[in-house]
């Protein structure tokens, strides 16, 4: 390549996925590049180009439409157009060249040849939005692991020791008996104290029960003999990597041929949550609202720490919510100490993000009280005082009063079990779109304190009804469709679905909320009692309303957008700013933009699927 073409080379090198290629390969690509000028109104690919080609927009603007004329996205300077890399696509898209456009173009065949040793580059171009998103999430997880405190913890600190074991030659029955008695899911087999094999629950299930092998057979017949193992001084991180890579959940720890312990994936994962665990236990011991206010002031720092430790949005949500829940519980305990014991059984319930365990540092409060049906006017003042005490306390701790008055201080949401049942009956059986929009938050409820059975009974009845109520589900769907993800980005704007532009991307309403809404609908359709979005998606996977693939794709989108949000907020915390959900496209890297577009696409696809079903 002539060095004079350096500017073109540098341009190519700045565009994902070529930004991950070594310079000599980018130079090869530059050599194979051609420049075209497409006049406004003329087609892309140009009529004389029949081969599959990649196009990079150097200057100008074009919009991508479906054959029905629906806007799919817009491309401008620095955007990459991969749709014409597949010959099957040529008549599936219409490109409207909106401004005279200068494009760099490379024949795909040559491109694939050049990047042959860099499969992720070819994958980026060839894969679908959801496949690409999955890769991005995997990379994000791997990077997260690198900053994990597990790097600095030895396996010895987390392993179980002494190890439960049976001697080689014991029967499968004896081994299973020992596992059941000790409440463990894996068992070591030793010969004269030397470890010779391992069996797990699933080995017994698959190699014995499912294979109709007698439980009198020796355990040696079904144990795994070629065991991987680690030494007790290896880092917990390396141990986790071995287990992740080999898809194993139990690993013996062996030093000099002697069995020192056993370690499970759960032991390793639990370790990561230690910091919020420390704060919650301190909160549980706080003796005044003043102390709680002090602890709550550290929540942004906790969020920052969780992000720094490599936590995804799921970790952060769980950690932050655990603290909110601890504060709520402690406030209730302090209230009870002041007001005297509760006159009747009740449940303090959280609604919305706290219920779903998806809070970020300072979400506002959404809560209510479900009180035993025996409630009479005599006990009402006690519950009112409790509500006042706790809600005021939460507000003082930074969980500001809910602007929609969804709080236990509102008499409407401080009611007996039967009144709550009636609420749900009305919402489900006489649904009105407007009313339903405001009440959807109540379909995500969790007991924070008190008698769990109150809410569980209501939920059980509610789920029996939602499954059958097509009108209710239809209204819920209609409401959910009001929040649509954007199409992508156009220059430094967010491209909204109707072709309009926005200056900022609202990660919550344009990304996370639509997924939360979808997951709620799947759960209510399938009678799933879980409220956490990720768990709802996992449990609904493979059901009539949600395919396994759709579930996996939405989980990827959730974790990608959610983690982008927690990272954005971590930056704000570091800079001493109040946190929000708004990102300017200028702050979003080219690669993140590509992945966000993929995530939006996944959400759009699932919304469209749901709409078609109604």
């Amino acid at each position, binding site marked *: *390549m*002539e*060095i*004079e*073409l*350096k*500017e*073109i080379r540098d341009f190519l090198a700045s565009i994902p996925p070529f930004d991950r290629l070594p310079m000599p390969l980018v130079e090869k690509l*530059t*050599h*194979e*590049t*051609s*420049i*075209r*000028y497409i*006049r406004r109104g003329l087609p892309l690919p*140009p009529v*004389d180009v029949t081969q599959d080609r990649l196009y990079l927009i*150097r*200057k*100008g603007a074009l919009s991508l439409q479906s054959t029905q004329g629906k806007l799919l996205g817009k491309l401008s300077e620095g955007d990459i157009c991969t749709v014409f890399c597949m010959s099957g696509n040529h008549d599936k898209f219409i490109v409207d060249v909106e*401004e*005279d456009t*200068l494009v760099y*173009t490379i024949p795909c065949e040559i491109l694939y040849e050049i990047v042959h040793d860099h499969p992720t580059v070819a994958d980026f171009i060839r894969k679908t939005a959801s496949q690409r998103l999955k890769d991005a999430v995997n990379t994000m997880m791997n990077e997260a692991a690198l900053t994990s405190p597990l790097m600095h913890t030895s396996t010895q600190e987390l392993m179980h020791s002494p190890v439960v074991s049976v001697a080689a030659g014991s029967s499968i029955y004896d081994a299973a008996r020992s596992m059941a008695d000790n409440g463990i899911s894996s068992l070591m087999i030793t010969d004269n104290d030397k470890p010779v094999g391992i069996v797990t629950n699933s080995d017994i299930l698959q190699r014995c029960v499912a294979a109709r092998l007698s439980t009198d057979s020796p355990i040696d017949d079904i144990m795994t003999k070629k065991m991987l193992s680690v030494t007790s001084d290896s880092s917990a991180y390396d141990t986790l990597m071995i287990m992740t890579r080999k898809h194993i959940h139990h690993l013996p720890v062996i030093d000099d041929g002697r069995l020192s312990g056993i370690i499970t994936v759960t032991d390793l994962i639990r370790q990561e949550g230690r910091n919020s665990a420390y704060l919650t236990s301190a909160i549980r011991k706080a003796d005044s609202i003043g102390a709680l206010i002090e602890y709550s002031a550290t929540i942004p720092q906790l969020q920052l720490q969780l992000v720094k430790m490599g936590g995804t949005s799921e970790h952060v949500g769980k950690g932050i919510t655990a603290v909110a829940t601890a504060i709520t519980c402690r406030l209730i305990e302090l209230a009870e100490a002041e007001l005297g014991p509760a006159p009747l059984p009740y449940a303090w319930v959280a609604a919305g993000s706290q219920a779903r365990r998806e809070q970020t540092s300072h979400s506002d409060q959404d809560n209510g009280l479900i009180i035993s049906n025996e409630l009479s006017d005599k006990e009402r003042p006690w519950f009112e005082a409790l509500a006042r005490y706790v809600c005021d306390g939460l507000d003082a701790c930074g969980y500001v009063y809910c602007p929609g008055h969804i709080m236990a201080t509102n008499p409407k949401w401080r009611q007996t079990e039967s009144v709550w049942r009636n609420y749900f009956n009305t919402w489900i059986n006489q649904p009105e779109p407007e009313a339903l929009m405001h009440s959807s938050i109540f379909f995500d409820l969790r007991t924070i304190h008190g008698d769990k059975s109150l809410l569980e009974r209501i939920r059980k009845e509610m789920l029996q009804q939602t499954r059958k109520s097509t009108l209710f589900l239809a209204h819920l769907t209609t409401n959910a469709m009001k929040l649509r993800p954007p199409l992508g980005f156009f220059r430094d704007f967010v491209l909204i679905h109707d072709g309009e532009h926005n200056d900022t991307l609202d990660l919550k309403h344009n990304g996370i909320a639509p997924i939360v809404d979808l997951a709620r609908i799947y759960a209510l359709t399938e009678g799933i009692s879980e409220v956490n979005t990720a768990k709802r998606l996992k449990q609904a996977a493979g059901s009539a309303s949600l395919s396994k693939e759709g579930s996996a794709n939405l989980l990827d989108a959730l974790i990608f957008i959610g983690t982008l949000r927690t990272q954005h907020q971590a930056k704000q915390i570091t800079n001493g700013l109040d946190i929000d959900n708004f990102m300017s496209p200028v702050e979003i890297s080219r690669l993140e933009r590509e992945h966000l577009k993929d995530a939006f696409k996944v959400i759009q696809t699932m919304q469209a699927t749901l709409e078609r079903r109604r």
Partner: protein
Amino acid sequence: MLHHLFGYEAKRKRSLRKAPDGALKEFLSVPFPAVQERVDNIPILAVDFETTGLSPVKDQILSIGYIGIENNEIRLASACHKVIQTRGKLAEENVVIHQITDDAKFQGESLQDAVEDLLQALAGKVMLVHYARIEKSFLEKACLQLYGMTPVFPIIDTLMIAKRRLDKRSVAYDPSELRLFTLRDRYALPRYNAHNALSDALATAELFFAEVAKMSGRSSPALKSVLL
């Protein structure tokens, strides 16, 4: 004008008979594109020279850059840049403008080698330049020096295309509006920072695309309407 254009092919054939064996003869033996062809169908070579000054008599070619346009696209693979060995020390201003130092110059090739490569690349093509006077006069002088004759080169000049366009308007314009990089800005083409023969040739090729897009109706103009 038509008469003049027929003259190109006729003059090529005439020169071919007189040309000495070698690069010039080979260049002249390939017919030029027909003048009634559409410009998006003809092979073009965008060319730029960096010189020590404006006079082909006193000054010398410092470097030659060229890049081909075929099937309506600029092929980067065809790009070529050559630094010429010149006599004497370079003036400081040339070093600054063209970023060619004496060191680079000594590693360069002879004018003959460079011109022969250019003639080979140019065979059967139309030469595309911005402000033809420089490239035309320096190339003619080099041929005269090397082969004892000046052949014919069909040339498209992006400056002339722009000038014709501006002349059509009744408003006066500043001559600086005709500069390559001013025109590129006008057509919203990307800014290239480098200033040397190859990147200027590339800049000219892109500008030509933009000019053709502006001037043409449904199909691109005929070669004769843009030839110098």
